[in-house]
């Protein structure tokens, strides 16, 4: 575009500037935790919850809630960035890392390079395995020390905080290994396939 128009009289109303290395371009800091979902909040009882690890159509491993709770727990404190522009700093999440899930499933190496996460209600999102291993991705069950509320994706939410937060799928139930990358729900509806907030990859073509 030729020239950026200046909005005279418009100025930052932020009391203190967040350090640049904490806030990706186009984002602003919020202190509350907005809920954004494409449909109704699902109420999932942990008795009925399982998490499955799949390769193509075959089941590699499945955990009940009770079994999942016995897996090694990891707690992380990090920032989250929603594509709708809000970022929330210093949020604390607890769950099981993707690395520990692989280990618990008896896998020394991930069998394919891509994951499709499937949620109750039909939501899907695709994530490269490289963005899940090495402690980068988890399946979380606690937020700030408490069970994750259904509206925020409880009982269990995929957690990939270095990508826009739609990749951290609410109500996650299945992680399916794929040989080739396929697009998930928002990725098929005009949103970016990868979603790196630091490169502002919000929409297709960004």
């Amino acid at each position, binding site marked *: 575009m030729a020239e950026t128009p200046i909005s005279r009289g*418009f100025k930052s109303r932020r009391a203190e500037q967040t350090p640049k290395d904490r806030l990706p371009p186009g984002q602003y800091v919020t202190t509350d935790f907005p809920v954004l979902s494409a449909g109704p909040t*699902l109420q999932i009882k942990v008795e009925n919850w399982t998490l499955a690890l799949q390769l193509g159509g075959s089941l590699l491993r499945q955990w009940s809630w009770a079994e999942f709770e016995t897996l090694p727990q990891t707690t992380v404190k990090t920032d989250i960035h929603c594509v*709708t*522009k809000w970022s929330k700093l210093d949020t604390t999440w607890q769950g099981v890392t993707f690395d520990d899930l692989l280990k618990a499933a008896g896998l020394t190496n991930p069998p394919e390079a891509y994951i499709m996460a499937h949620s109750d*209600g039909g939501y899907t999102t695709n994530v490269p395995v490289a963005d899940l291993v090495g402690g980068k991705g988890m399946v979380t069950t606690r937020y700030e020390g408490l069970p994750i509320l259904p509206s925020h994706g409880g009982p269990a939410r995929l957690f990939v905080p270095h990508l826009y937060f739609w990749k951290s799928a609410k109500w996650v139930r299945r992680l399916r290994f794929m040989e080739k990358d396929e697009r998930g729900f928002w990725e098929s509806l005009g949103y970016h396939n990868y979603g790196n907030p630091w490169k502002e990859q919000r929409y297709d073509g*960004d």
Partner: protein
Amino acid sequence: MTETVTASGRRLDWQLAQVREIAVETFRVKSLLLHVPGWQGHLPGQHVDIRLTAEDGYQAQRSYSISSPPEEELLTLTVEKVDNGEVSPYLVGDLRARDQFELRGPIGRYFVWTVATGGPLWLIAGGSGIAPLMAMLRHRARQKARIPALLLYSSRSLEDVIYREELDAMASHDPDLRVVNILTRKQPTGWAGPRRRIDKGLLADACFPPSQSPKIFVCGPASLVEAVSSLLVELEHDPLAIKTERFGPSGAVS
């Protein structure tokens, strides 16, 4: 639910929007009628990102729903002033006709409805959440579609009802459209309409039953959307037929 849409890969570039007109909707809501040269068109329910640049170079981005139908030449954004907000007080209070800012879109291909989607069309709005639903109703009216439609619209008071006259006129000329205003805090003398927050009784009575498979769109404050969409599921509406958009104090609109 996963649609196999081929990604276009076309970049959504920032475009220049010029304010042609500003319409006062309520004491805290205005509609910005924008001329966007080369606008590629949109579907009812979609939104845009806007970017404001201050004199010192500071930039802020926000998302706003489009309230105009695709049939209209100017693009309309309806903005509610959020107290302590950064962008909306500027848009509602300071922006003038002929001012310019940057915009890109349209964005979102899920929360959309066209006459081709069919009906019945059931819209449920809270406050400024009416904006994307108004684009659907305006589109439906422009197309003279005889698709049964119902709008449940919750506002604090009669003075807070956005597009009140237009909605009244639309409904009075259209036997297939019903508009139900709900006033939760203050009602004028003799008000015969609902005066409580949208509850199960209201959603079960005189609305489309699940057997008619209505296309349902719920938009408004997160608390209203959470409550209404959960009640609709309890009433056995298909969860996949309920599309939601939540406006939080710092969600999609601020």
